[in-house]
C-alpha cells in the first residue's frame, strides 16, 4: 500500500503526480474463498478488513455491484450521533464514534470525521422523556451527553435564537458534544484500500444473482461475472440482502423503507453543530463544502405507503423535509435545493439489525440497519469478523443476533415452507453460540 503523508504528496508532486497507484486492485474472482461478502459498502468492507487485520483471514472476496463509494443515492456526508444508545446493544454507537476517531490514522486515509457536536431539539414532554432516557444510558456507559434548557439550546443553534425558541415552544435539547459528521465515501475508500492491502479481493461491477449450495451447505454466490466459490457467505448489501436470500427461498425478517435527503446549494458556513429534531423527523447539518443537508432521521414508508398524497410519490416526504427546515429557520426559505435522494433501507421490527451467523450453515448477515447504518458500520464489521473467525465478539453484538427474531423461514422447491429450528434462547446463549 502506498503510504499517504505530506511527504508522499511532495514527492509525487515532484514527479508530476505520475506515480500514484490505484487505491485498490480491481480484482476478478479467482479460486475458492474462505468468505464471500456481498455488498461493498462500509459494512462489508469493514468485515473484510477486520477479518484480515485481526484474524489473518485473507482469502476473502468483497462483491460490489457498482463502484466502491460511488452510490449516488446517498449523501456523501453523514452524521455520527450516538443518540440511539437507549436500545439494547446501543453501546455500539459510542464504540463506533471512538473507532471513527482513530480510523483515519489506522487506515492512513483521512475519513474527515468532524466532531462538531449534536443538538437534539425537544419540543414536548415525549421528546424530553426520550432525551432523558438516552442521556442516562449514555452517561452510565461513560458517553458525554447532557440535557440543556431551552435558552441554552437556542444559543447553541445559531439562527434559532430566543425568538425562534419561543415560537417553536422549544422545551430543551439533548446535547452530545462529541457527535458530528463524517465523509461516507472516504470511509468506504479507506476501508477498501486497507482491506486490499491485506490481500482481500475487491470485485467491482459484479452483481450477485443467487446463492449456490452444496447440499444444505452454502457453497458460494452466483454473480454476473460467473460463480464465486466460498466456504461462507456474508450478506452485507443493505436492502438488497433480502432479495438475494429470497432467491434461495430464505425469507429474512426485514422490511423495506426509504430514507430521504435534500441537499442545498453551498453557502458560507453558518451552522456548526448537527441539529436534530426527532419530533419532526429531520436532521440538519452543513457539510464541509458548505451544502446544507436536511434528511430524515427515521425511514418512512416508500411511495404507496401511508405517507404522501395522491400521486405525489416522494414529493410530500420531501416537502415535509423542506417544511421542517423552514419551520426551524424561517430565514432559510430562499436557500436553493441542489439535489435530493431517496435511498432504500431495510430494518427489522425491533429496530435492531441482523449481525452474526444464521441457522443456515455458512450464511452470515450484516444488514437491517435501517437509518443507523453508518452510525455503527466499522464496529459491526468487527463484530461479524470476530463471529466468523470463531471468537467471542463484543457483547453489544448479542442484541443483533439474527436468531432473536425467530426461525428463518425457508420454502423448499415445491413451495412447502419449512423452518430452521430456532436455537433455544438465542440472545442469552449468544456467547455459547460463538465460543
Amino acid at each position, binding site marked *: 500500500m502506498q503510504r499517504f503523508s505530506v511527504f508522499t*504528496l511532495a514527492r509525487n*508532486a515532484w514527479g*508530476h*503526480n505520475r506515480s*500514484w*497507484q*490505484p487505491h485498490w486492485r480491481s480484482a476478478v474472482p479467482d479460486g475458492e474463498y474462505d468468505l464471500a461478502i456481498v455488498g461493498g459498502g462500509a459494512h462489508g468492507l469493514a468485515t473484510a478488513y477486520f477479518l484480515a487485520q485481526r484474524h489473518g483471514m485473507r482469502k476473502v472476496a468483497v462483491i460490489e455491484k*457498482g463502484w*466502491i463509494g*460511488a*452510490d*449516488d443515492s446517498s449523501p456523501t456526508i453523514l452524521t455520527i450521533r450516538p443518540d440511539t444508545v437507549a436500545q439494547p446493544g446501543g453501546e455500539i454507537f459510542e464504540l463506533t464514534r471512538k473507532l471513527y476517531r*482513530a480510523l*483515519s490514522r489506522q487506515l*492512513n*486515509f483521512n475519513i*474527515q470525521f*468532524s466532531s462538531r457536536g449534536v443538538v437534539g431539539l425537544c419540543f*414536548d*414532554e*415525549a421528546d424530553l*422523556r426520550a432525551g432523558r*432516557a438516552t442521556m*442516562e*444510558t449514555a452517561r*452510565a456507559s461513560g458517553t458525554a451527553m447532557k440535557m440543556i434548557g431551552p435558552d441554552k439550546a437556542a444559543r447553541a443553534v445559531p439562527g434559532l435564537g430566543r425568538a425562534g425558541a*419561543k*415560537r417553536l*415552544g422549544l422545551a430543551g435539547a439533548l446535547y452530545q458534544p462529541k457527535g458530528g459528521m463524517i465523509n461516507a*465515501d472516504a470511509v468506504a475508500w479507506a476501508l477498501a484500500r486497507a482491506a486490499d492491502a491485506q490481500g482481500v479481493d475487491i470485485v467491482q461491477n459484479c452483481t450477485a444473482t443467487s446463492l449456490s449450495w452444496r447440499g444444505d451447505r452454502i457453497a458460494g454466490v452466483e454473480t454476473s461475472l460467473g460463480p464465486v466459490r466460498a466456504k461462507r457467505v456474508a450478506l452485507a448489501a443493505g436492502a438488497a440482502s433480502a432479495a438475494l436470500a429470497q432467491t434461495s427461498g430464505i425469507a429474512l425478517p426485514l422490511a423495506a423503507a426509504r430514507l430521504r435527503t435534500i441537499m442545498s*446549494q*453551498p*453557502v*458560507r*458556513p453558518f451552522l456548526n453543530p448537527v441539529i436534530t429534531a426527532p419530533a419532526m423527523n429531520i436532521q440538519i447539518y452543513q457539510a*464541509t*463544502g*458548505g*451544502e446544507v443537508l436536511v434528511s430524515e432521521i427515521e425511514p418512512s414508508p416508500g*411511495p404507496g405507503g*401511508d405517507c404522501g*398524497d395522491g*400521486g*405525489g*410519490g*416522494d*414529493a410530500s416526504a*420531501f*416537502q415535509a423535509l423542506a*417544511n421542517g427546515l*423552514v419551520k426551524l429557520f*424561517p430565514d*432559510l*426559505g*430562499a*436557500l*436553493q*435545493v*441542489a*439535489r435530493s435522494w431517496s435511498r432504500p433501507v431495510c430494518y427489522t421490527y425491533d429496530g435492531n439489525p441482523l449481525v452474526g451467523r444464521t441457522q443456515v450453515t455458512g450464511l452470515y448477515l450484516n444488514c437491517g440497519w435501517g437509518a443507523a447504518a453508518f452510525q455503527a458500520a466499522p464496529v459491526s464489521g468487527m463484530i461479524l469478523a470476530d463471529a466468523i473467525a470463531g471468537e467471542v465478539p463484543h457483547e453489544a453484538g448479542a442484541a443483533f443476533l439474527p436468531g432473536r427474531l425467530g426461525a428463518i423461514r425457508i420454502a423448499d422447491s415445491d413451495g412447502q415452507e419449512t423452518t430452521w429450528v430456532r436455537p433455544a434462547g438465542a440472545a442469552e446463549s449468544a456467547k455459547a453460540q460463538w465460543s
Partner: protein
Amino acid sequence: MSAGKASGGDFRVAADGEAGGAIQDGSLIDRRRELRFRFDGRSYRGFAGDTLASALLANGVRVSSWSRRMQRPRGITGIGADDADGRVILRDGRRSIEARATEIQLFDGLRAKSRTSGPAARLLARMLYGQLGALTRAGAQYKTFKAPGRISWDLFEPLVRHFSNCPPVPRGNASGEHFHLHCDVLVIGGGAAGVCAARAAAAGGARVVMCEQSARFGGVSDLYPAKIEGLAAADWLGRQCAGLGKLSNVHLLARTRVVGSWGGSQVLALESCAGAGTGKHGEADDNQIRERLWRITPRRVIIATGSAERAFLFADNDRPGLMMSMAARGYLSRFGVVPGRKGIVFTNNDDAYLTAVALHKAGAEIVRIVDTRPHPEGMAAGMAMGAGVHLSFGSAISGIETDKSGRMISGVRIIPTLRAAARGSAPERVACDFVCMSGGFEPVVPELGSAFLDAVARAPGSGEAQTEQPGDAPRILAVGAANGTLALADIIAEASEAGMAAAQERPPTQSEEGKPPGGPAENSADGRLAPAGWTIRLPGGVGERDHHFVDLRADVTVADIEVAVREGYRSPALLRHYTGLDAPDGTLRAGNPKALAVLAAFTGTSPGRSPDDRPTYGPAISFGALAGIDASHAREDTAAALRQMPLAEQHRKDGAILSAIAGWEIPSSYPLSGETQAAASWREAAAARASAGMTDLSARGKFDFSGPGSARMLSLLTENDAGTLAVGDCMSSPMFDDHGRLVDLMLAARLTEGRFTLLTGAHSAALAWRRIRALMRDGGRALRVLACPVSEQWAQFAIAGPNARDVLRWLPIKGMEWDGEAFPPNSVRQGEFGGYPLRIFRTLETGELEYEIAIGARHAGNLWRSICDAGKKFELTLLGMAGRDLMLLEVGRVRGAIGSGRQDVVGLLSDDRQKILPPGAQIVLDDAVGQSAVIAHVAASALSPALGRSIALAAITDGRALIGRPVRVVTADDGQAMAEIVDPVFLAADNPAPESVTDESGPGGGEGDDE
C-alpha cells in the same frame, strides 16, 4: 464600430447597425430608458430590458465572480441558464442573494458585487493552487490531516470552510403557493419545437400545458435568419403562441422551470411570479409570494428542452472574455452588445460562422475563425470569407494568453489539429481580446428520474401498473434539439407530428426528411461528443493540464482527473465524488460532458454516458417554495407559529400561565399570587378531585365525518367496528404511531345515523389527519365519505370531578338529561346553548365523573363564563393542562408515547414516599443469581395530589409479569433509589380505568361497573 458612448456602455452597437436584416441589434432593450446600477462599488448605465450580464458586458466589465476553490477570475460565458460560473451577489434590501448575472433583469438602482472571499483568500488560493498546485491535486484532502491529535482534521476543517468562496446564506422568506394541474400533454420547453408540439397537440383536442423557463417563448429562433410562411421565425412563433394563449385547452406557463418529479406521476414546475424572483428584486416585498409551484399530472410528456453549446478544452479555458458562440450572437441580437473589440471564433461546426459574420458586421473585428475541421463543407466558409474574415482550417486553440492580472485576454495560441503537423512547430500567436467558441450541441434533458418514467407509464389515477406494449404510444417523447434535430424545418415537422401523436394517443410516425421523435434515453446516449475528436486530445505539457478546466464551478482540471484515474477512480460517479467535480449548484452542469470525454480519453473507453450518470439538468427550487405557503406562517414574529385557543384572552385574564404544547398555546396552570406553577397544578388537581375542575381542551383534534361510508372509514381508522355504534354512543380506541407505540386514545362518537365525529389529543391530531388523508386517498370515492378537520371551529371544555354533573345542571340547556341512566359514560348528546349547537360528551379520562362540552369557537366565551358562574357554589376550579396531566398520571396515562409498541406500561412506587424518581433514570432489575440488567427508564413521575406520595410510570418489556418486583432506579448524578413495580392505575377509583376501555360500555354500564 459605431459605439454609442453615452448610451449604456462602450460595447453597445448603434440601433440601426443592421436594420432590415434578420438579426436585430438590440431587440429586447429600450434605448430611450436608461437605467443606473452599481457593481463592485462603481456605477454604470444600462437600458431597460437589459439583464445584468448584458449591461456588464456593454460596460466592458469582464470579471463577474471569483471561482469557489481556486479563486480565479471568471466572466460571463452564456446568455441564460447555460452560463458556467457568472454568478454575482445581488443586494436586495438588507439581504444578499447569489444569482446568475444572465438571469437578473436590470432595474434602476440595482446593486450587486462579484462573489469573492477577499484579496487575502485570493492570494492564499493562488499560492496553494498556483505555485503549489502539484500538491493540491484531487484527493489531497484524503491524504493529509489524518492524526487524531493536534494537527487534525478538526483543526483544519474550519479553515477549509472559512476560505472556500461560497455565496452568503440567502436570507429571506421565500415561499410558494402550490397548485395542481392535470393535462393530456405536458410540453417542457417553449422554443420552436415546444411551440409546434403544443400547437399540434392543442389542435388535436388535447389539454396542453407548456412550460418555458425564460420570460419569452421562441427559444433561440431569433438568432437564426430562417423564415416561416414569409415571417421571421421568431415572429411566426410569437404569433403561434399568442394564438395558443387564447385557446381554452392550453395553459402556457412562462418563467416556469420544471424542477423534477420526486417520484410519483407528478411533475413539479416552479413559476417565478412576475415582478419577483428573477425579476425586479428592488421592488420585492418580504411578504409577497415570489414563486408558485405547479404540481402537474400529465398523461404524456413532450421534452423540447433544446440543446446547450459545448465548450472546448484548452489551457486557461476559464478566462473572462471567453464566451459561447450562441451567447455572443444573442447578446448582439437581443441587447446590441459585442463582447470585445477584436475577437477569434473557435468552432467545429457551421453555426459559429453566423456569429462570426454577425459580430464582424456589427463592428467587432473577427481576426480569425479557427475551425478544427480540415475541410468544412457548406456555404458558411464562403460567407465568412466574403465578409473578409481570415480562416484557419484544421487548427485549434491550444491556450489563452492574458495580461498579468489574468482578467484580460491578450491573445491565443493556435496549433494544427494533426499531431504530425503540430510536432516541432511553435504555436502561432494571434492577438485578440475575446474568444467565442462552439464545440457542437448537447441535448438538454430535464431531470425527471426513472421513478417518474415508471409512474407516467401507468395510466394516472388507475394506480395499477400497466406494462407498456410494443405497439403502444410512448408516454415520453423528446423532440427538436433535445432529440438531436437541429434544422428548423425538421424540428417543426418532428414536433408537430409528436404533438399530434400525443393528442391522439398513437405512436408518432416517421416523417420523410426528419427522424422520428425518440425517448430521452436514446438521444442522451449517443456519441456525438467531440465530433472532430479534438476537444479531448490531452495536452502534452506537464504543467499545462492544471489549467485545462473541465468544470468551472468546482475548479476541476484535467490534472485532477488524471490523478483520480491513476488512483482507480475511473467511473463518472467515482470521479464526481473523489474530485468534487460537478459540484451541486442545481443548474445546468456545463462541466459534465467535458469531464466524461476526458475520463474516456484517460481510460481508453468510448465517451458516453454510463447508466449512473445524471442528466445535465437539475432542480432549482428554494426550500421555501418546496415547503409551500403553510411553512411561511413560521415567521420570526414571536409566537405566530403557535396556534391560539379561542379563549386565549380569557385565560390570560384569569391569570393563566400559557405554554407551548403540541403547537398550541395552552394554559398550563392558573397560579394564585405568590404560588409556584408546580404548587398551582397540585392545588388545581386536588381541588378537581375534591369537587370539580374545568379545563379548556379546545386544542383537541376534532374531525367530522359524513356520508354513508363514515362508519366504514372510522372502523378502518380506529380498528374497532364503528358500524355497531348506536346514535349517541362513543367508543374509545387506542391510537398507535408508526412505531407501534400507544400515543393516544381516540374517541369516536356517532352524532346521527350518517354523521360521526372523532376526538384526539392535541399532540396526535396531525397523525390522525395524516391517516385520514391516506384513507381518503386510497378509497375516498369508493368509501363515499367526507372528512373535515374542525379542530379550530369547535371550542371544547372538560369538566371533571365528583360535582361535575351538579355544576352542569345549572346551565340553561333545554331538554338535557344529565343522570347516569340517561347519559351514561362513553356517550354523546347534542344540545343548544343560547341558540348555538352544543356537543356534550361523557368521557372517562381522569377517572372522575367527567363531561366535555363543545361549542362553536365564536360563542365559547359565553359558555365558559356561564359554567364559571354555575360552578361558583361548587368551588369549581380552573384546571390547567399541567394539573390535568397530574390527574392523568394517577390513572396511568401520559401525553404522547412512551416505550416501544411491544412494552407494557407499568407503575413505579418509590420506597421513599416523597422521593420523585428522576425522569429518564435507568431502572435496574436484579435477578436471583445476582445479575442485573437495565430494563427501562422512568418515563414520567410526580407527587400525586390524590395519593399524597410519589408515583412514576415506565414502559417495560413484559412489564406486567414483573409487577410486585423490587427494582433500583439509578441516575448518573443522583445516586439510586429503591422502588417497586406496580399496576399503572394508581388511583383505585370507582370508575373503570381508561386503559381498559377499548370496547364500548353498554348504555347500562354506569359508573363502577368494571373492577
